[in-house]
């Protein structure tokens, strides 16, 4: 068994293989992970909107030992990841970290948020530091405005087109 604690280091190995095959291979995998995550999240997000997203990430905050601030207001949910355990483990690793490890988060979250008609703004800030800021808006125009403030804005396949 690869312990659940070490999943991210296994994930990192999968990413490195797929990156060698080409960008579309990575994107197809992230989409598969997104579909897998729908089982835990889609009904909740559809039913409760931002409040459902808050509930999901509050659960993740505890179970994945994240140093994460969550702020919910009427038109947006903000996740401020102060220390991301996923990237932290990949960096604290005897195997080489994938340089774009952070990209997978937008790769699976983006398509999911699109499906529930909300708008994701994903600021990775710096791929080498385990911190990021995610904002999810009800209103598309507010999301577009917020994108201007991002230091390193992360996209996902549909968002690129």
């Amino acid at each position, binding site marked *: *068994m*690869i*312990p*659940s*604690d*070490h*999943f*991210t*280091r*296994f*994930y990192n*190995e*999968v990413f490195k*293989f797929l990156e060698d*095959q080409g960008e579309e291979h990575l994107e*197809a*995998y992230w989409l*598969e*992970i997104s579909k*897998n995550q729908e*089982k*835990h999240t889609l009904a909740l997000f559809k039913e409760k909107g931002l409040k459902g997203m808050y509930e999901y990430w509050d659960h*993740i905050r*505890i*179970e*994945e*030992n994240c140093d994460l601030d969550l702020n919910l207001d009427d038109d947006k949910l903000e996740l401020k990841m102060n220390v991301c355990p996923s990237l932290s*483990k990949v960096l*604290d*690793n*005897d*195997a*080489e970290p994938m340089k774009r490890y952070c990209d997978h988060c937008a790769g699976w979250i983006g398509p999911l948020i699109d499906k529930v008609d909300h708008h994701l703004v994903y600021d990775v800030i710096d791929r080498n530091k385990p911190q990021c800021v995610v904002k999810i808006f009800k209103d598309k125009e507010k999301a577009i405005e917020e994108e201007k403030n991002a230091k390193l804005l992360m996209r996902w396949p549909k968002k690129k087109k």
Partner: protein
Amino acid sequence: MKLSLLENLNIKVHKNNLDQKLRYNDGGNVHMDFHGATNTTIEFIINKYGIDTMNDIFKKVGKDVYKDIKDHIKKGNIKMLAKHWQHFFDREKADYSISINEEEIILTVHRCTAYEHVKKLVGNVSSHFCDQTIKTNEALADNTPYEIKTEILGEAACRQTIRKRA
């Protein structure tokens, strides 16, 4: 210079100490849903790239991610693997037993909570789910004086044995 030399010696002494901490010594809460993502990944990679590719990735996990345990096995310290097994099977609340002696260590997993969790999540567990154990173990033992044999005893049950090669 002398201090630096002593420090180096000290590090070497500690590296051979059986009480040395695990390289990855996770604590805190456990997110069992990651096993579901592992199951999805196994199915995705095998369907798209074939089983040899999946096995190669597991081998890289055994060789590179678990380099520290592999180095211990090379030096004859197989108890570090037992420590790893104990730490993580405890964290995941598996039902298991370990028999340890100088020549071999046998881990018997009576109820694998990773397998059971995936079954609860998705219904059908990949028929290759346990390959993560088999192939990672093989890579850990590769180019060492030891072999690790993984026997599947039934659903969510296996026996893993590390012993010197004949």
